[in-house]
């Protein structure tokens, strides 16, 4: 599904990723954990195609195709999805208008016809119900005045509607209370299926109690320094990141 080979990335004069290698297989949920400043968010942005980063070396292959040459919208059309750590507020853009524009843009890119309004509304309502998203929220401008939890639920709603192949969740648990964490996790778990993989970036093990990963990778100083099963997350919770900080240094 997704293969990252020897990825070297810098922003301004700082090299953040130092030859990162990572493979996530079809249907797999991979977690990346690591201390602050290890390059986790950079990795998520580089996968999604943010312009500020300069890729010095390496490849990101989605089903064998290098996405690094693609603009962010082309990557989205190819099936990549980034759930933002800090979803942006867009005053003046109605949530429904935005959702429909996104769905149709991707359908156009895939040479499918535009979604009909009744189908669209039915689809949004069904997905919103699962995520316990109030219909009033859908009538408001995108993310404007939403709480942290509401914004994260809105990210998962977009994920559900866009049906991506590969989802990156960048610290989706940050700013969530216990109930919101459960709702968001259930939303993600409902999307787990063959043909769709996840990269879950988090600081804390608690998210992984809800979204149980197949593999756990430890990231430090812009590299993957250890890979294991879900038990690795529990170990980290006990021991902290101290070992990995020194290992990579």
């Amino acid at each position, binding site marked *: 599904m997704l293969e990252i080979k020897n990825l070297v990335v810098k922003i301004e004069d700082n090299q953040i990723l130092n030859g990162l290698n990572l493979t996530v297989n079809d249907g797999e949920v991979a977690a990346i954990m690591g201390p602050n400043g290890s390059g986790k968010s950079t990795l998520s942005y580089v996968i999604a195609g943010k312009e500020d980063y300069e890729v010095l070396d390496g490849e990101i292959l989605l089903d064998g195709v290098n996405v690094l040459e693609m603009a*962010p*919208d082309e990557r989205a059309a190819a099936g990549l999805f980034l759930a933002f750590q800090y979803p942006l507020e867009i*005053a003046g853009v109605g949530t429904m208008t*935005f959702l429909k524009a996104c769905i149709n*843009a991707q359908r156009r890119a895939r040479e499918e016809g535009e979604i009909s309004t009744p189908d669209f509304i039915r689809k949004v309502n069904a997905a919103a119900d699962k995520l316990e998203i109030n219909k009033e929220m859908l009538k408001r401008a995108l993310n404007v005045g939403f709480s942290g939890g509401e914004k994260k639920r809105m990210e998962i709603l977009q994920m559900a509607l866009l049906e991506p192949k590969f989802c990156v969740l960048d610290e989706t648990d940050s700013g969530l209370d216990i109930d919101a964490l459960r709702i968001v996790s259930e939303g993600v778990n409902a999307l787990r299926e063959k043909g769709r993989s996840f990269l879950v970036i988090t600081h804390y093990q608690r998210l992984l109690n809800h979204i149980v990963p197949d593999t756990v990778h430890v990231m430090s100083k812009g590299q993957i320094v250890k890979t294991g099963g879900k038990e690795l997350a529990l170990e980290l919770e006990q021991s902290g990141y101290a070992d990995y900080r020194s290992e990579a240094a």
Partner: protein
Amino acid sequence: MADITNLRTSAETGLSNLFEAARKSFATEEKISREEAFKFFEATGLPSRRVEAFKYTDLRAAIVEAAHPAEVPSAETAKSTVASAKAFAGVEAVRLTFVNGHLVDALSDLGSLPEGVTVTPLTEALTKGNPLLKALGPVEQTRENPIYQLNTAFLADGALISVAAGAKVETPVHLRFVGTGATAFSTATRVLVSVGEGAEFSLFETHEGPNGLAYQPNDAVDAVIADKATLRHTRLNREGDKAIALSTIAARLGAEANLESVNLVFGGALSRHQIYLHFAGENANAIVNGAAMLGDGQLADSTLLADHAAVGGVSREQFKTVIDGDATGVFQGKIIVRQIAQQTDGKMKSDCLLLTDEGQMMNKPELEIFADDVACGHGATCGAPDEELLFYLMARGLPKPIAESLLVQAFIGEALESVTHEGARDALIGEVEAWLRARG
């Protein structure tokens, strides 16, 4: 230092000659002071950038020749011109149609006015007399404004609209201005809207004209909003691409009166929209928004004066300008709080979105506060579309042009949110979308 006297320009001489010629046709019993207005204008001339209020909009340089006042159009011309008018066509309203600045009875709904509303054509009022004429010029400061004074001097037509006290008028009145001609012409219209105590009324104005013709419309609305009355005013400028379009709204607000005014600008090589607010009664409330979407070669000026002369007035002004190509946006806003006007709350903001490196925006906010218990503020921003927001939208699959259009629409949309009439708001949003589509 010796006074500097500008040499009269060809346009100024032309205006004097045109005024002299028009003088003969003025009705004898006129209740407007054309002579006084023109005398003021002759003394000041067309304002150049040396005049502070016209620093960024040099009318002396822009108006090269004085265009002839437009004749009353033939019935046939009027009919064919109006047939091509598109602005607000789908919005349910009672229409008063002006072709080249002349009210056309046959194309207006004078016979089917909503209950509580009376309309008198200005030409009729000027010849027969009308008590409402006394209400013209409701804001003192307009007397020192050359655009408004030129409008008074050359006033050709218009209407006096009166809304009875207590009338909650649901059907809006739409002033539909359309222009046509083979050679440049000028217009001067004045519409007075007098909203009686406790009444509610919506007024739409749309302005359309031919491309490629440097015609010179000068349209003014005088609004007298009585105590506890509400006026909702929505204006659309879709003038032709070469027009020099001057306009004014001068509103006097009584106690607890409300004004909501929005002006959306697309047209004109040069446009200047002036807003004069006089808070005469206590606790009056005004929301005045403006939006402009400009392309190559255009200049659009919004100039506002809010004069708080009574306790507890609230004013909110929000102006949004989108600049493409080498266009220029101008916003000048002045809030005056007189000593008596304690507890005034005034906030003024101008935001600009620059889509190219060649465009420019001029902001000149001014506060003149003589009371000590007030909250007044102003702010201005200017910048390119937010890269972070663009990335967010693109990461959801929207190609860059669509993402950018969505952000532009959202930016402008904020200024249109105060339009409470759904049909009018949708029509304005439709115009914004059309502009974005045309931009590609």
